[in-house]
């Protein structure tokens, strides 16, 4: 248990570090699509909703709350990627 938690912390640190290094190199021109793209990625919390949905049991209220979370997260993922694709299409070179 102890080691898994430390390992998880290490992964968190490494992910933040890689993210920081790579994202620092993204030019100002792409900052808006970067934000809409990270909107889409923050929808990954959908995974948590999928994992806990079968476990909420009989409570209707909790079930509805998870469904709301699913709706929000799915909207983020689909809408975020779709609008990012639209923006990035404008930055493609018209050769």
């Amino acid at each position, binding site marked *: 248990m102890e080691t898994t938690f430390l390992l*998880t912390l290490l992964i*968190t640190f490494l*992910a*933040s570090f*890689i*993210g*920081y290094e*790579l*994202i620092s190199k*993204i*030019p*100002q*021109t*792409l*900052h*808006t*699509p*970067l*934000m*809409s793209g*990270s*909107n889409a*990625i*923050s*929808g*990954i*919390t*959908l*995974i*948590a*909703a*999928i*994992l*806990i949905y*079968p476990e*909420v049991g009989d409570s209707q209220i*909790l079930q509805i*709350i*998870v*469904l*709301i*979370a*699913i709706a*929000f*997260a*799915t*909207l*983020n*993922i*689909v*809408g*975020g*990627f*779709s*609008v990012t694709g*639209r*923006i*990035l299409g*404008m*930055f493609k070179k018209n050769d």
Partner: protein
Amino acid sequence: MIETILLISAVLFIFALKLFGRPSTAHRANSFAMLAMALAVFSAFNFDFSKYDSAFYITIVVSGLLGVLISKRVQMTQMPELVGLFNGFGGGASGAIAYVELSNTSLPISDVFVAIFSMAIGIFTFSGSLIAVLKLRGKLNNFSTKLGNIFSVFLPTILIIPAVLEMDTFLNEFIILVALIAGVIRVAVIGGADMPVVIAFLNSLSGIAAMSAGFIVNSIILIVAGALVGASGIILTLLMCAAMNRTLLDVLKGGFGTTNINNEYAKDPISTSPEDVAIQLSYAESVVIVPGYGMAVAQAQAAVKELTNTLKDKNIEVKFAIHPVAGRMPGHMNVLLAEVDIDYEDMFTLEDINSEFSSTDVVLVLGANDVVNPLARTDEESPIYGMPILDVDLAKQVVVLKRSMSPGYAGIANPLFINDNAKMLFADAKEGLENIIKSFELV
């Protein structure tokens, strides 16, 4: 099997960020990230799709379709609102999940703290983002900063209430309520032009909420992706703050630009006409256009493109100088210009173009104000002192296209407007540009 899929997903996310580094490869980055997301979501089902009822699948399909619909309809000038809204959804989703997990009594104590953290951050992001969207739509004026100050004092007091009452039944609901109110008040006191910082900050919080949700459900991929979003938001937040020479705390405190400063002008500006601007431009060899929020408000992008084409046809060099905080979100101006097919290689950052102004024939300032105010270099008393600005006052000639002499967000006069080399063209950005283009046909 599942572990392998998740590993591929995590690697793809990181590759996507790498590809995002250049405009020419960025559209592939989006496909990589989509694939990574699809794999991650797929793995969460653990090959057992029968555990889920129809309500679950209907919710996914309906909200997915809604997402497509919104993304196709949204105008590029509305991107700040859309990103703000999505920040709120992301935070809200993580907050809701944390709440459900907290209702699970068998949660180990260490996870309880993480869940409370995730819930509070998520709900704060949700309500704060909705207020940010309302502000961006111009539906809310600045609240007095007093409200924020009073709240900062009361917040610790409010948090003691459950302990005093020995409350244990509605504790989670109480935290949600406090987080909701905190989000509303915190964002409500911050001014419209500081929204780039606020949006980037809330973006980061939505990632942090997702990351902590990953700790509760033991999902490494959720932690990794959440951390990436958190890092991205923090970088943008710090960049925006640096571009205004202010600290994040100072921005979040709110109330900027409300101090009373003498903003009288020593003399009247020289006003010019569209015909004169057309003549001035046609004799230039190099022109730099500085777009600001005024361009977005007037929806003047198409007119900008037309003017650019007209000038380029006359073999005049045209460049765009974009200040990091121009507009209402990071990179806002770049997207608006890209939308009308202006080459991203003609868009320059402050660092890249500032040395060129002294050799530029004409600078056309389009609805920008504080970001070209030379007081930032000269007046130590000024609230914007030390802020990196575009040194357009060093150019040979400057034309400022603006509706009036009214001050910008900082609430201070801009001596550029009465500079000897500057002329004012009083007009709405779109109308003004269209009149200049018409005059070209007569020149």
